[in-house]
């Protein structure tokens, strides 16, 4: 799993290395380190760390850090999201779009979505842009199929984002 953690280490030489070593010790792989030397609290500095590690090794890592006086301020898993974009052209008003997204949410798990509707109407409705983030590629495929099908039934042009 990909983990992001905010930790505090003593503001003395060698403490950063001492805080990173345990990640390797549990066979983790460090993806990124941000060493924030400006944020010193009680003689400790903030480090933001992103790393890959097997989930069953996390508790071991935490105990090693504790034994080395590393304070864990925040830790959480980072889930990659799949972005999907759509533009709907035709008779797509706000009520229709809201209803469409409600139905979509019954089929797929959204991490988030954002709807932008054009301000003007030309007598044939508004243009709508939907930017969604999904948790899995499978959900992204399902959403694609759902949008194409719904737009076809409602005589809308659906312009989908190109995915690899």
């Amino acid at each position: 799993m990909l983990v992001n953690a905010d930790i505090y280490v003593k503001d003395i030489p060698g403490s950063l290395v001492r805080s990173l070593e345990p990640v390797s010790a549990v066979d983790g792989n460090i993806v990124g380190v941000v060493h924030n030397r400006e944020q010193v609290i009680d003689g400790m500095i903030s480090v933001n760390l992103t790393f890959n590690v097997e989930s069953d090794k996390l508790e071991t890592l935490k105990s090693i850090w504790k034994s080395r006086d590393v304070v864990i301020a925040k830790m959480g898993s980072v889930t990659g999201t799949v972005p999907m974009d759509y533009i709907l052209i035709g008779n797509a008003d706000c009520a229709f779009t809201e209803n469409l997204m409600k139905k979509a949410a019954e089929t797929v798990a959204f991490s988030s979505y954002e709807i932008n509707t054009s301000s003007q109407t030309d007598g044939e409705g508004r243009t709508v842009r939907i930017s969604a983030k999904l948790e899995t590629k499978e959900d992204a495929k399902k959403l694609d199929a759902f949008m194409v099908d719904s737009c076809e039934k409602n005589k809308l042009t659906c312009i989908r984002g190109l995915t690899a």
Partner: protein
Amino acid sequence: MRVFISGFGNIGRGFFETLIIKDAYLKSRYDELITVVGIVDSKSYEINDGTYKICGFCTLGGKNNTGKLHTDRNGLSCTEIMDMVDFDLLIEASPTNITDGGEGLKNIRHALRKGKDVITVNKGPLALAYSELDELAKENGCYLRFEGSVGGGMPMINLCNEALVGQRINSIQGIFNGTCNLILSRMDSGIPFEQALREAQQLGYAETDPTYDIKGIDSACKVAILANSIFKRKVSFSDVSVTGIDTVTAEAVEMAAEKGMVIRHIGEISKDRLEVAPRLIPKNHPLSVPGSLNKAQILTDMAGPITVSGRGAGKGETASAILSDLIWIMDRRNA
């Protein structure tokens, strides 16, 4: 090598000119001469029949001055004219007919049944009857080549089947119609579809009746050809899901731009997808190309993504594809 050319419009003439331009090169490569023994256009024809001999500049000059070749067809079909002369290779460059394949399909069938090699740039016959023609070529020991049918000067079919042989092609996504791309990239500047279309017509890219391009029919033909020839799928034009660009509004283009994206008309082929549709792509995506170029991204299992681009139409560009197919066939026939 005795060559028969069916279709003597821009492309047919372009190839004929190429034979003249590349004469020295072809003579240095092969001992045998390449002779054009027959040419047919929609109204007229010329054949080397003992009393008349096709001559490069006379033929081109005649066609350019009168719009016709030496003899009127007077109701003769192209296949009847083909039967008047012995030839080894048919170059099929007659206009595309996507309803029933038109005369082009009849010509290709006729040549293959007679055991003649065929090079075609005519999309209709391939998009409608690829499997049948491929089978016919194999049954009769003929070569059927068609690099110029997709992307004109942009190498695609032979690149995938020969240069990338052994790799699995997972998908191809591309811009296969320069006119649509020109219109959409002009719309990026804020002008509406109708105006962008008129501009494309004035520049000579779009036909007076632009249906074939803007409704996605041309791109769909190419998608069907690629699906058959590269992905070995037995499909025809009617299996391709097609959405044209004529419903794309200036407002949609503006909303795409607000998100750092553009709208492009993309053909997509994979093992489970056959589609032509306007799609949203990031401005920095390889397929976000302006103007009338064709561009495609081939996703392979070993070499990763490979991007090719080139002019999708034009007589010189398409003639270059015919020339490469001609050389491919002659190399094998002379081996």
